[in-house]
């Protein structure tokens, strides 16, 4: 049984007990514990259940690679599933529950799957659950879904907040072990801006645990000194609890900093996402130990040798009283020595190598530990915890030589460099035969825009597992990073001297024992969380899933929350063996970000609720809000839809606003309207290309309604263009289209007509724009005074600049409602004052603000098109009867050639008409007019569709516009428009101008 040792634990403070709860039980650990070390210290080895077979699971690792010890952490708004106990720092009041079991962790009904496991091999679900067909949706799938998943879903909104940092540095060093510290120091001494991040709460990585010495000091002391030195450098930033999550193109990297996970409720954000641009990225991310594949290697109490050592050295926790060590390399002897020194029993070190180990092995033997050479664990025994191990020859099939009683097994199958960050952006790997590992191929790094590699692997992450090599490689990496950036590395000081025992070579072991038969293979786990066994990978290969990607997807190997950190190499070695090929030929699956899972909260950052996206406000927004407007989102604007008063419905408010406007005076905040200045000697020529109309002939002081088409000829935007002077045009666009129209202009200018002398500027937010609409609009402007608005001197489609009511104003006489109407543009800072002045002056006329819906209805009553309603990216101006706005004199404009294509000139294209329901009702939005019969695919034939449909308060009936086959030639014909439920609404084809056909109101 695991327990807390009386002494030891370099990371815990025994003077500070910490209370926490696990599955409702109140337990005590120490400050500095992880949840896993605290639970082990409390004798709780069983921490969870596996995904498929619901096998009992204890921790197998001590860090980020842990696949088993996942818990539901916290409560309410701070609840989080699938938290790794091994990386969760203990805090006072922590509550955790284990996952994926019913009714309890100890007695889980789902464990019946273990008994049935022979019927549930890899991919069994692809071969069954197929009949009868409806059973999949209603029976099988719901059952599978319920039994899958791990942690519970959060039910409450997140109580924490998150933030983003943008950071620029010369050298980003990921990993705060001795390699990362040394690389950072080399770069820092050369004057580079350095960011060093470490995912845990401690500097130094494994070196202090391994007990080697550097420069004559204990590694721990050396680490303390170098950290002090780094902290003193102004150009170096150090971050703990900050993981290098991903590497992307162009030296972009992600850091994931966990600020308050260990201090819940503390002020400030919980996580911080670092978005980093680095000149060079040094990945000093260390290496991860591999499990050994023997039967029963998933029983709680079987864990990595390095983890058993970590628990003893870092947290003063023994993982068992009698710990059997099984290995194929020297490093695991360190664990045996540590445990022995802690006063625990190590019944034997089972070394798969026939010749045994080196210096460390000799030390172990000297310490009285029995060493079995060329031997294997054929089978771990036990149920919810280890009770013993069957020992056999590694070379054989597993015949028992002896049985050794033990309550834990520390295993080591060698080490795999953490190559994730190297690989994220295309860095390639090479297979190191001697070390039985993939390591970064220095000739094929991820490359930047200049073709040079921008990631440099260092230390163990680069395949240098011995301390001396690690330090040499890290120093070189730091120096290389700065010299590649054009700086001079600091004069090379003496390399720190490592004092570590010589290690004998590793002996690759992919199956233990080598000749294990089916019985053992089907109990040898590769992927602990997803329950993938050696037999599963072999089955995949047998069935032709030979590509490593197929095998992964068929068996789910490496698809668990640890993303195969422990299982991948063992899995592909198993695959290679079964296929009779070499490991490098099988290759790896793709390493994808993030290195370990990162919270969605951190990715979203501060962007939520009101500030989910940037919010754009007009200068008059406060007034709309105070007035209780009902808003609709239009891009990032929020425009008043209508201004309901009293108990009005939206429909009633819209009708009132229209009545008031048509009867007297309405005001519209049109500030969101796009305003783009086009200026320069070539501006007239450019305008002629942008618009279908002839714009170069427009006189200063005049306005013209213009159409803009895409390269494919489709109508994309419209609006009034005012010529400011010979070289300057002001283009009004739709509210939603302003940014894309501006981008469209720039695209043409920058890629096609780069030699034209034209500038564009999007001045949308520089002006407040107000439409003054209705029979009394002229009077209210006269009251403000300053610009002559008389009918004779200020004609329709004129514009003037002047001082109106004391404010510098551009005044346009244009109309989108059919009424006498002006739009005035004033500097944004004056917008609210002018709005108030208009309301004041207009009071006697009952000045009524109106919203977007009234705007839409009034334009529809006049038969004016609306981009996005009458157009949808498939409509050309000719469809809308807008031929008059297409210049016949110009040789070219954007879209002209496209409009000459056969289908564009086809007389069968649907054309714009008005539609009136026979019964006066409102046609449904988007309804289609049916024709006789069905097409070859059995679809009902259609001959037209509704593009806009409203109730017109002015006319007291439904009005609509639509596109209809030969529409303009079919006036008076009645069409059938079925609703979704089949009920038919009939409508007559009429002229699209429903109100004031001759424009008498507008032109007074």
């Amino acid at each position, binding site marked *: 049984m695991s327990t807390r040792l009386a002494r030891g634990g370099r990371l815990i403070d025994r003077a500070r007990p910490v209370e926490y709860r696990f599955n409702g039980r109140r337990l005590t650990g120490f400050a500095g514990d992880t949840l896993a070390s605290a639970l082990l210290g409390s004798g709780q080895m069983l921490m969870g259940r596996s995904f498929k077979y619901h096998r009992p699971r204890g921790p197998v690792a001590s860090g980020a690679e842990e696949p088993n010890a996942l818990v539901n952490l916290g409560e309410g708004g701070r609840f989080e599933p699938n938290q790794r106990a091994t990386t969760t720092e203990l805090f006072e009041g922590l509550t955790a529950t284990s996952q994926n079991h019913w009714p309890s962790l100890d007695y889980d009904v789902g464990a019946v799957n273990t008994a049935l496991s022979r019927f549930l091999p890899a991919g069994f679900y692809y*071969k069954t659950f197929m009949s009868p067909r409806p059973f999949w949706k209603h029976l099988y799938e719901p059952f599978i*879904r319920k039994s899958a998943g791990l942690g519970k*879903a959060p039910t409450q909104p997140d109580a924490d907040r998150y933030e983003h940092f943008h950071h620029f540095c010369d050298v980003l060093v990921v990993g705060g072990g001795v390699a990362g510290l040394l690389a950072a120091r080399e770069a820092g001494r050369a004057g580079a801006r350095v960011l060093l991040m470490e995912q845990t709460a401690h500097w130094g990585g494994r070196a202090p645990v391994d007990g080697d010495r550097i420069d004559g000091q204990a590694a721990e002391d050396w680490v303390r000194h170098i950290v002090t030195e780094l902290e003193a450098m102004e150009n170096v930033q150090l971050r703990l609890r900050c993981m290098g999550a991903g590497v992307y193109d162009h030296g972009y990297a992600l850091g994931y900093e966990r600020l308050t996970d260990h201090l819940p409720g503390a002020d400030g954000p919980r996580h911080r996402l670092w978005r980093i641009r680095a000149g060079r990225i040094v990945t000093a991310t260390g290496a991860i130990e591999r499990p050994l594949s023997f039967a029963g290697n998933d029983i709680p109490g079987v864990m990595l040798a390095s983890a058993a050592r970590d628990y003893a050295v870092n947290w003063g926790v023994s993982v068992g009283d009698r710990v059997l060590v099984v290995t194929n390399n020297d490093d695991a002897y360190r664990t045996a020595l540590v445990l022995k020194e802690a006063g625990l029993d190590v019944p034997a070190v089972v070394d798969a190598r026939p010749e045994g180990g080196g210096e460390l092995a000799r030390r172990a033997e000297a310490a009285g530990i029995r060493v079995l050479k060329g031997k294997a664990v054929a089978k771990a025994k036990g149920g919810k915890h280890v009770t013993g191990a069957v020992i056999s020859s590694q070379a054989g099939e597993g015949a028992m030589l002896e049985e050794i009683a033990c309550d834990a097994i520390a295993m080591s199958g060698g080490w795999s460099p953490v190559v994730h960050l190297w690989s994220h952006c295309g860095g390639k790997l090479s297979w190191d035969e001697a070390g039985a590992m993939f390591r970064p191929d220095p000739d094929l790094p991820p490359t930047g825009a200049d073709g040079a590699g921008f990631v440099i692997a260092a230390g163990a992450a680069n395949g240098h597992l011995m301390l001396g090599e690690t330090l040499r490689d890290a120093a070189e990496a730091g120096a290389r990073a700065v010299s590649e950036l054009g700086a001079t590395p600091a004069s090379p000081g003496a390399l720190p001297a490592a004092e570590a025992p010589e290690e004998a070579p590793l002996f690759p072991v992919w199956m233990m024992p080598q000749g294990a038969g089916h019985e053992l293979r089907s109990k040898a786990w590769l992927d602990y969380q997803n329950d993938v066994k050696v037999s599963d990978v072999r089955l995949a290969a047998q069935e032709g899933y030979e590509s490593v990607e197929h095998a992964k997807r068929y068996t789910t190997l490496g698809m668990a929350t640890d993303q195969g950190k422990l299982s991948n190499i063992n899995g592909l070695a198993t695959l290679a063996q079964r296929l009779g090929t070499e490991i490098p030929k099988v290759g790896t699956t793709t390493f*994808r970000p993030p290195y370990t*899972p990162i919270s969605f909260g951190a990715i979203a950052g501060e962007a*939520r609720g009101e500030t989910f996206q940037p919010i754009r406000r007009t200068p008059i927004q406060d007034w709309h809000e105070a007035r209780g407007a009902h808003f609709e989102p239009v891009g990032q604007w929020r425009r008043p839809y209508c201004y309901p008063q009293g108990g009005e419905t939206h429909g009633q408010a819209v009708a009132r606003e229209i009545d008031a406007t048509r009867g007297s005076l309405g005001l519209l905040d049109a500030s969101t309207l796009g305003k783009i200045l086009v200026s320069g000697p070539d501006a007239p020529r450019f305008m002629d290309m942008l618009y279908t109309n002839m714009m170069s002939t427009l006189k200063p002081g005049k306005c013209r309604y213009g159409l803009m088409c895409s390269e494919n000829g489709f109508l994309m935007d419209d609006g009034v263009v005012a010529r400011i002077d010979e070289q300057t045009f002001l283009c009004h666009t739709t509210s939603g289209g302003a940014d894309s129209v501006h981008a469209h202009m720039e695209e043409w200018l920058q890629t096609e007509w780069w030699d034209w002398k034209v500038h564009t500027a999007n001045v949308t937010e520089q002006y407040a724009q107000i439409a003054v609409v209705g029979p009394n609009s002229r009077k209210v402007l006269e009251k403000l005074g300053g610009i002559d608005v008389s009918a004779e001197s200020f004609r329709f489609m004129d514009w003037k600049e002047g001082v109106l009511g004391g404010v510098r104003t551009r005044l346009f006489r244009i109309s989108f409602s059919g009424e006498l109407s002006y739009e005035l543009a004033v500097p944004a800072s004056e917008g609210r004052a002018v709005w108030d002045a208009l309301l004041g002056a207009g009071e006697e006329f009952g000045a009524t603000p109106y919203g977007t819906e009234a705007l839409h209805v009034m334009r529809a009553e006049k038969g004016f098109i609306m981009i996005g309603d009458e157009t949808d990216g498939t409509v050309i101006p000719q469809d809308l009867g807008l031929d008059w706005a297409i210049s016949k004199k110009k040789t070219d404009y954007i879209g002209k050639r496209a409009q000459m294509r056969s*289908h564009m000139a086809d007389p069968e294209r649907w054309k714009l008409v008005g539609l009136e329901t026979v019964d006066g009702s409102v046609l449904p939005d988007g309804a*289609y007019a049916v024709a006789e019969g069905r097409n070859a695919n*059995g679809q009902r034939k259609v001959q037209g569709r509704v593009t806009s449909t409203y109730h017109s308060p002015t006319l007291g009936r439904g009005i609509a516009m639509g596109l209809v086959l030969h529409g303009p030639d079919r006036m008076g014909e009645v069409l059938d428009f079925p*609703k979704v439920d089949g009920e038919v609404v009939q409508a007559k084809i009429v002229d699209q101008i429903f109100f004031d056909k001759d424009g008498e109101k507008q032109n007074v």
Partner: protein
Amino acid sequence: MKRYSAFAIAREAMRHHEGWERAWASPEPKRKYDVIIIGAGGHGLATAYYLGKNFGITNVAILEKGWLGGGNTGRNTTIIRSNYLQDPSAAIFEKSRSLYETMSQDLNMNVMFSPRGVMMLAQTEHEVRGWKRTAHANALQGVTTEFISPRRVKELCPIMNIDGPRYPVLGALWQPRGGTARHDAVAWGYARACSAMGMHVIQKCEVTGIRSEGGKVRGVTTSRGDIDCDKLGIVVAGNSGHVANMAGFRLPLESVALQALVSEPIKPCMDVVVMANTVHGYMSQSDKGEMVIGGGTDGYNNYTQRGAFHHIEETVRALVETFPMISRLKMLRQWGGIVDVTGDRSPILSKTPLENCFINAGWGTGGFKAIPGSGWGFAELMARGHSTLCDGFELDRFREGRFVDESVAAGVAH
């Protein structure tokens, strides 16, 4: 082909599963086939399958430069729906959806088609009108959809926040028989069925050239030698431009990265597929428990099968706002695939300037859902020279301006 069944599993369990045969054979290429399909993704394999099943053409090779199903078939977010606006689109996607309904039984491989329902949110007035139009169109096209109220949205998907301050949910287009399927199994199922008909699925066989004579296709040059054929189908999403170039013609499409991501697995909390085009994101929960998430394409042309993080950020931001409970879940993995996007966001299923050479390309961000329908129609086109399912998707439409524009309804991605 030995049939898969619960009984077969029980039988094999008694002999340590040593009797399972290969799902598909691994033959050496012959010198000549009646038909060669380049690309063993879902679309290529489905084409081959229906060539055999519907037209009795089985002397077929499907050539794959990597591993079958390794392109977008194995990278997408597995959404299946047919609520398209334009007639040609609705026809082929609905055919496809209906083939998914019976695919497991047809292929004798459980592809886990799960008609859990797909909803596409309306979060602006403009979107409301757009989805209502689609619902009207669908009713006439024989596609069952309806426009549903915010309340119904909330009932179907309780974890959604429908009252967000910026883009409250105003309704949704709901397709109850849309859903998801297990993408890999679709490729494997077709490959197994093709192999059982005697076709050759040849992996690690890269086509490096297309040979022709007198304007007619003769065969292909591959990393494993020259192979002749009477007819050639190019079905290589993500590389269409390259391979078309080998055949001597150009395609009006761009290749861009589309990214996706998954969360860690959690217990079931979402039974429907939700797409939110205004805020750019979509999400469903897999049978394994992961939240499967996608968004818009990257903004630049690219062949790397990875993308820029800011797109992930945009997508996640949208979904945290739409589903606040995911804020404390974690992103497990992100990845990318390369999609070929045409000007009108609709595919090309067409004859080409090279006689007897056909192309199936340009599915953009929505190819997975189309696999069986595309295979059905394209096989007919290759076998008979015409398919009503492919009508409208000819290469010539770009020359004629006869677009099948779905961008109006489909938004950014699907």
